[in-house]
């Protein structure tokens, strides 16, 4: 097997993880971390130029290319943010150099795991990769070793493991369904082979398998009522990890769900997975929207906002059809970019103020205009106001599904509006009003945040033709 671009997106993170685990000095390692993430991103982009052939272990198609590029891009910008974030943590003594070494190695292991989950051509391998991603994030969430961080990590570990266990049971059932048709052995777990034979699988087994997979991977997507780990893990871990969790890991779990949905769609006798996903998506969106009002912790609040948006995305994919899939895909991309930009801002804010309590943060636009207005722009985007990209994708989700399910869409719109109200209510005190807390100047790199916001803004105004056709191809693939 020659080493192509596909192997590259796996090898670079794996090798740099090993390297970062032994190198001392956070300045050097955080730059190396950035460089590794950048090279992975560059190689991921090259997948669009020369598409390598899918092998027995790794696969590439229009669907996972989008996910890989998005993942590696956000991973790269987050590593840039992480460099300035970690520098501050070292200065204030919240992290020791040994922890940072561990942190950087784990960051690359996480990248490896996510890329492996996205490229794996085997349902078992994909499961192992998602498991690995869960474990690395558990370790990173507990990095600060405080009461809250350990409690959050423990909760995440237990709930994540249960989810992962249920997903494994679903994976075994898929194998059981495939085995009589394809025969014993590894072939019955290979995506590309499964997809060609799916019509002949036992539909009942597929149905049960999908329920387990939905519950299992749905836990990792953060769908209500399986979301309990998500706010804690976001609030207590280092902020770059919150950005990666919200922006990327939730997407990776969603990708797994979408693959299995495609598999079921090929078997006419099996249940339609759509209604199940629509239900869970709607519940998550509505629940999270109302939960936003009572949040006192700024990172916890944006974590609930992630649940809401994952709900909207799962709703769109559950409705299915080329238009709704297109909208879901666009919304997923926009949400990843916006939410990670917000976490970049929040990370610096929490560092300056020394607290994450919303009550202790006030008047940011006065004391820290760049950071404050950056956050305002991010919240405007995430709330779904024009002219940002999320407005467009939410508009598309609503308009593409309204004719088919008007009542459901009304519920969704209510959830979006409720969330908008909550976000602005909180933003009002955070960004404006009497300045409170420390006014020390921020030692921040604003480039990642504004790069993301600029893309989201540009997407709201104009989408390049190539991007639209690319997304349309994927949407068609998703059925």
């Amino acid at each position: 097997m020659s080493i192509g671009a596909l192997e590259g997106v796996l090898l670079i993170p794996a090798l740099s993880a090993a390297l970062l685990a032994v190198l001392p000095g956070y300045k050097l390692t955080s730059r190396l971390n950035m460089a590794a993430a950048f090279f992975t991103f560059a190689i991921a982009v090259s997948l669009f130029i020369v598409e390598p052939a899918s092998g027995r272990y790794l696969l590439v198609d229009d669907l996972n290319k989008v996910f890989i590029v998005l993942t590696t891009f956000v991973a790269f910008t987050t590593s840039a943010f992480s460099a300035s974030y970690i520098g501050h943590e070292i200065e204030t003594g919240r992290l020791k150099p040994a922890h940072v070494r561990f942190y950087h190695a784990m960051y690359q292991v996480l990248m490896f795991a996510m890329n492996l989950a996205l490229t794996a051509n085997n349902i078992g391998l994909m499961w192992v990769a998602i498991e690995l991603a869960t474990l690395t994030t558990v370790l990173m969430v507990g990095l600060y070793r405080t009461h809250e961080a350990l409690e959050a990590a423990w909760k995440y570990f237990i709930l994540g493991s249960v989810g992962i266990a249920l997903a494994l049971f679903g994976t075994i059932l898929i194998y059981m369904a495939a085995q009589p048709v394809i025969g014993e052995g590894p072939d019955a777990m290979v995506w590309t082979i499964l997809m060609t034979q799916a019509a002949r699988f036992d539909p009942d087994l597929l149905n049960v398998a999908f329920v387990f997979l939905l519950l299992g991977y749905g836990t990792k997507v953060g769908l209500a009522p399986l979301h309990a780990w998500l706010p804690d893990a976001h609030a207590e871990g280092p902020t770059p990890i919150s950005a990666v969790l919200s922006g990327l890991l939730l997407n990776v779990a969603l990708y797994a769900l979408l693959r299995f949905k495609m598999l079921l769609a090929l078997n006419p006798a099996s249940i339609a997975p759509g209604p199940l996903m629509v239900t869970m998506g709607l519940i998550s969106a509505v629940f999270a929207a109302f939960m936003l009002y009572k949040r006192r912790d700024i990172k916890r609040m944006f974590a609930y906002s992630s649940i809401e948006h994952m709900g909207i995305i799962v709703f769109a994919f559950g409705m299915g059809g080329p238009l709704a899939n297109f909208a879901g895909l666009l919304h997923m991309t926009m949400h990843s970019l916006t939410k990670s930009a917000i976490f970049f801002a929040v990370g610096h804010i929490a560092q300056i103020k020394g607290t994450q309590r919303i009550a202790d943060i006030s008047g940011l636009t006065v004391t820290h205009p760049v950071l404050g207005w950056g956050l305002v722009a991010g919240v405007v985007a995430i709330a779904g106001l024009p002219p940002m990209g999320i407005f467009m994708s939410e508009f598309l989700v609503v308009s593409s599904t309204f004719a088919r399910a008007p009542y459901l869409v009304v519920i969704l719109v209510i959830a979006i509006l409720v969330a908008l109200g909550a976000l602005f209510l909180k933003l009002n005190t955070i960004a404006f009003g009497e300045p409170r807390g420390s006014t020390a100047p921020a030692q921040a790199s604003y480039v990642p945040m504004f790069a993301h916001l600029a893309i989201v803004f540009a997407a709201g105004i104009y989408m390049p033709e190539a991007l639209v056709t690319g997304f349309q191809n994927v949407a068609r693939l998703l059925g």
Partner: protein
Amino acid sequence: MHSITFDIAHMLAGSLVLVSFLQLYQDRLSALLNMFALHAFVLAASVAWQAYAQDAPHLYITAVIALIFKAIVIPLALRRIVIKLGIHREIENVFGVGLAMLLGIGLVALSMVVMLRVTSGADPLAREDLAFALAVVLLGLLMMVTRRNAVSQVVGFMSLENGLVLAATGAKGMPLVVEISIAFSVLIAFIVIGIFLFRIRERFDTVDMQAMDRFREEQR
């Protein structure tokens, strides 16, 4: 069809469910750990029998891992921790034993109804195994829900995972079974024992999850 091979496999898988029930009503941690060791032992026997019945020698590796690691090493290590913390006599159930048993019976019935119905076309041995495996998984989940103590939650998770290994070995010719069982063992060893329990001990002086919940309440 109902050969002696089938009967023995059936008996072993059934015993695993039975031991899951035994775990459910143990009211002391040390007794619970004994039951878990028995659980892992039955699993090892069951996997070994499957290895023999399916003529799949790689499954013997899984059986040996289950025997050495889960039936001996982990229970011993957990016992040490439990005695060190002085909690080997205590266990609190969220609700009574009777209710837990009734729920458990319901879950077993559920898994039989679901799995036997959908797998009517499959090989009978795999079918029974899958139904029992789902029962063990659900009982493990039930245990995690009904216990508050971190150690017994871990035991619940491990017995859940035993159910998964049973399912994976029952699915004939499934690849990666050995790898998955190793991955799970490593996971349990490193994370659970190595990091969490010690950290929790260090920070909380208790492994009671309710005490941990309090920290969050205060913060809200």
